[in-house]
């Protein structure tokens, strides 16, 4: 294969990257606007004219200009490598997300399995960053993060599996396709959330867990500024730090999109055949994802942070038992109806 022949493939593969970058710039701006509005402020207003829309570009420019600092005692290779591993893991997971009926990076039958496996790399990169920084705050932050991510993976997986029981496929494209149409109770879309009362509970568990997995408030212990400076990112600055931020926002989008696929019909239009098609499909899919992202931001500016022991208590004593019970109930429901 010459480079020319591989060009279409490269473009094909780059599509999610473009989406992530645009989304990240937008989401950072949006996060600040949401924070501003909720606090009766306006947020960024000056850069670029209308409501400071170019604020993220200005920030990016600033980050690019920053000095590249690596602590003298740090483990140089791991320190440099960690942010890229983190972003790579987030990015790789987008391969199995069906952005529209016409585009999906890799249409494989073990999509969900692959996605959950590859996101586990995030934990490793976080530990890598914390350890390589040679800083006790970083290390503490990294350990907290790792503990949190590993713990919350269990309820996430249980919630996802509950959906898979109903859907009967690990391929996310198939899962999306089976949710098309508007037959539930005669008018509701055939989204899985409406298919089974216990899936509602599954969604709540899923949503709480993805908040914790992407370390959003109220589970932002890894970066709890008041205790750990910035957790595992303490020693990072400039573009390396930006890479972490990018990965974090990408992770947020990834999990929101996964939620949209599993519970809200992916790229299906909420109006059946109306506004349907690949382009509209992409729009609807991103729209649903962004709504979940917005809810995450909304929660961030509403709730205070959990304590470490409360975080673990919530996971191991409440969410995990609940998700197992729910799993069994969903299986029963599927057998009976």
């Amino acid at each position, binding site marked *: 294969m010459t480079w020319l022949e591989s060009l279409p493939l490269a473009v094909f593969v780059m599509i999610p990257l473009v989406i992530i970058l645009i989304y990240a710039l937008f989401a950072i701006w949006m996060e600040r606007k949401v924070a*501003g*509005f909720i606090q009766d402020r*306006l947020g960024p207003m000056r850069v670029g004219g209308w409501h400071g829309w170019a604020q993220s570009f200005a920030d990016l420019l600033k980050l690019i200009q920053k000095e590249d600092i690596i602590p003298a005692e740090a483990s140089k290779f791991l320190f440099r490598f960690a942010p890229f591993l983190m972003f790579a893991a987030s990015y790789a997971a987008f391969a199995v997300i069906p952005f529209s009926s016409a585009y999906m990076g890799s249409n494989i039958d073990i999509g969900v399995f692959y996605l959950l496996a590859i996101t586990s790399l995030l934990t490793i990169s976080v530990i890598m960053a914390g350890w390589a920084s040679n800083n006790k705050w970083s290390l503490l932050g990294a350990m907290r993060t790792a503990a949190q991510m590993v713990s919350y993976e269990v309820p996430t997986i249980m919630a996802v599996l509950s959906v898979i029981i109903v859907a009967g496929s690990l391929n996310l494209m198939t899962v999306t396709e089976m949710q098309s149409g508007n037959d539930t109770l005669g008018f509701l879309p055939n989204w899985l959330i409406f298919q089974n009362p216990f899936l509602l509970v599954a969604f709540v568990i899923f949503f709480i867990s993805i908040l914790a997995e992407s370390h959003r408030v109220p589970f932002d212990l890894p970066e709890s500024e008041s205790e750990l400076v910035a957790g595992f990112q303490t020693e990072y600055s400039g573009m390396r730090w930006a890479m972490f931020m990018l990965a974090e926002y990408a992770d947020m989008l990834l999990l929101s999109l996964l939620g949209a696929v599993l519970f809200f019909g992916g790229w299906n239009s909420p109006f059946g055949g109306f506004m349907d098609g690949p382009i509209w499909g992409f729009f609807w899919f991103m729209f649903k994802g962004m709504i979940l992202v917005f809810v995450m931001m*909304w929660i961030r500016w509403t*709730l205070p942070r959990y304590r470490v022991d409360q975080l673990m208590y919530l996971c191991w004593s*409440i969410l995990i038992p609940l998700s197992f019970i729910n799993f069994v109930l969903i299986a029963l429901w599927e057998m009976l109806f």
Partner: protein
Amino acid sequence: MVHSFKQGWQTLKSIFTGMGITIRHFFGPSVTLQYPDERDVLPKLARSKLFVNIDDCIGCNLCARACPVNCIDIETVKAGADVDLGKTSNGSQKRLWISRFVIDMAKCMYCDLCTYPCPTDCIYMVQEYEYSDFNRDNLVYKFSNLTPEKIAEVKETARIEAEEAEKKKAEEAAAKAARASKASDSRPSSVPGAARGIPGSAKGIPGKAKGIPGASKGVPGKAQGIPGAAKSIPGKAKGIPGAAKGVPGKAKSIPGTAKGVPGAAKSVPTAAKGVPGKAKGVPGAAKGVPGKAKSVPTAAKNVPGKAKSIPGTAKGVPGKAKSVPTSAKSVPGKAKSVPGTAKSVPGKAKGVPGKAKGVPGGGAAKVPGKSTAKQVPGKKPPKENKDNNTD
């Protein structure tokens, strides 16, 4: 179990309540201003920046004295007799050149205290608040409108005039001295009183000077006394009658002292023997404003003495007391005593109009003219004076 469910329900409920509140604010109006583009209207009396309308300033220094942080610095120069500086907008005659009027806004704490005492209302707050600067020196605002040349010129004029005035005074004093010496030669005994004239304080201020007057020919020495801030009353002229009498306020001529009783007290005793003394006391302002007390006894006949005492403030701020008797005959001098410090006692009288400075511990008085007298004021350092300081 039931409890856990209740708790779980409570948790969910409070989360949704909280999210309800935040989403309402999300859609609610913002309360902030886009500052450089929009500005709030300041209340009318907002304290933002001081301004001095220098044309109306009479240089009374009241604003500078009122400032708790001393950020106003005023220097004035007396205008010559033939110069008319005009009137302020409310009709007060201006008599001083304002050679310096600076306000250090970096020090100012915007308490607004300086604006109230101004008799002409020419120092006030304006509503300009955007005057931050990279250099602190630029926050020192200068309001005087005189050029450096003009300042130099008025200062020179003032100096010359002051010199002339002094000369005149000296001449007058010399003439008086001549007259006095004549008189005292003839009636020496009647004058001694002057010397004791200012006893120290009522309360044991050591400095009670005994003046030992007499030294030369009954020429009084001087007196002294200076009362301490708190409880002393200068001016009591002992040999000179009259002191006690006719002194308004506190009997002892200097009011105000301890208790900050304002009010001036003047006593113009007339000496029984023809030696009138004058005591003027201007006590301080009631609270901590140092006042001055002046007692200026002038001997009627031969021994005029002048005693000035400026007691400290009511509150233990040591003031200064000066007593400057001028003896008729060439003798007396001036006595200065600084009460607050416990060291008052006049001490020496030097030469004719000389000065007497008193150290309470003891002091020598020279009576010019003739002989030296020692003035031994109280030997003990005044206990009371110490108290005075803390009063």
